């Protein structure tokens, strides 16, 4: 499967990556190679094989419904570039 430039741009947009238009054709080539490599798996007959959700042969451990976390707001807020009134401030996003 060969990717078009347009698809590369879409993937970059969904991942919020800024890419140099000059690099698009190389990305397209590299990504297409990766897809071609993985596509070899399609030659395996997987009828009757249950899809794998996780490589470990284990099931989810559960934790009891108990609150053990304490308020660490001041520590966490210190890592943010902008805060006010206990809130993290980010560029305006409104739909």
């Amino acid at each position, binding site marked *: 499967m060969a990717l078009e430039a347009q698809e590369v741009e879409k993937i970059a947009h969904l991942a919020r990556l800024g890419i140099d238009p000059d690099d698009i054709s190389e990305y397209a080539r590299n990504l297409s190679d990766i897809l071609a490599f993985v596509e070899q798996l399609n030659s395996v007959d997987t009828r009757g094989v249950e899809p794998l959700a*996780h490589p470990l042969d*284990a099931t989810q451990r559960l934790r009891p*419904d108990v609150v053990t976390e304490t*308020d660490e707001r001041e520590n966490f807020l210190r890592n943010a570039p*902008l805060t006010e009134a206990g809130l*993290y*401030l980010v560029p305006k996003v409104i739909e």
Partner: protein
Amino acid sequence: MEWETVIGLEIHAQLATRSKIFSAASTRYGAEPNTQACAVDLGLPGVLPVLNAEVVRMAVKFGLATHSSVAPRSVFARKNYFYPDLPKGYQISQYELPIVHDGYLDIEVDEDTVKRIGITRAHLEEDAGKSLHEDFHGLTGIDLNRAGTPLLEIVSEPDMRSAKEAVAYMKKIHSLVQYLGICDGNMQEGSFRCDANVSVRPQGQEAFGTRAELKNINSFRFVEQAINYEVERQIALLESGGTVVQETRLFDADRHETRPMRTKEEANDYRYFPDPDLLPVEIDPAFIAEVTQTLPELPEVKKQRFMDDYGLSAYDAGVLTATRELGDYFEAVVGVSGGLGKLSANWVMGELSGALNKAGLEIGSSPVSAEALGGMLRRIEDGTISGKIAKQVFEALWAGAGSADEVIESQGLMQITDSSAIEDIIRGVLENSPKQVEQYRTGQEKVFGYFVGQVMKATQGKANPKQVNELLKKMIND
């Protein structure tokens, strides 16, 4: 052309746990911003989600109560999108293998129509944080207390055909999750909200029309309004030669319209994949059996029992079992009244519900206790007061004037059942109304009601109406 409306609902019920779905931070509502958002909720590097056992139990309860299949193995998936109140850049949800699937719920559309609504699936997921757009020098404030709050998303089949049916279904789910104790149902606080998928098609056509998704509706009234507006919009659009676009729309309650959300291209390209941080959840039959033991009496079972035990109509039983609190109150009234099922139903659904509605109160905060109401019904039954006087007693109970017996005693409302006393009054009325007596004797029997009215007036409503009728009939013909 005749159009048919097709509606499917996605309901988000916030599960009533103490801690979050994947972290041990508190879910308590109304805390100071970001004081209940821990490293896991913030999506800091190196943290791992650990699933809360209680959310699994609650989802299984819901599955059992809706005749659904509980998946022996379900998987969490990442739903990828960027928004500042979603710190990880993905929401942990379930996609291909939800924990609950293929169930149904019966709804009462009106007094004699029951309709079965299919439940496609119910899956577990985490809620996002909250964005505050006002007043931060052109910036947006982010509160992540709600991030990681457990949600059960309940997806119906497109089985509803009117806004009314959609509301009936939503109310039924709302009641059920509260019966089960898995959600507090508080719509103001966002614990219970709904998206509606709405489309129209020509009557008789099999294929569905293109649907619009109405987002985040948080009241029953708004669901009905939003759907009705959207249906009108789509029909007008189609009849003028246009086409409906599949899109997400917001309901504006103030402007009475739905309008499109400004959506970027590829907005719905979520690129789901199984979350490698979480293992498949396995549920064995022993656990299901254990949860089954803890189920309360469900609304439909209670409804049938009310019909069987108290001789109520399906409609009355449905109304009285709409919430667990109302059912409990009704049964307490029946108990105190000494088993007067029908009379209790009439008073709870009539006078009491009317007064509560008017005062904007829930049954839980009724000024008239079940003991007080049941005590009054006992006095109707034993003839101490008439049904009419009872309304007066009820008002006094509502105003906090004590028990029914105290009210009857202090206001002298006891019914007059002494025949000779009533006869004296009737005699007086007849003597004062020679004209009407003449009319009656010449065949105008409808003046009979006038005499009854006069007697009741003379006794301030305290005479036993049945007795008045009998005695009057006898005396007027003498």
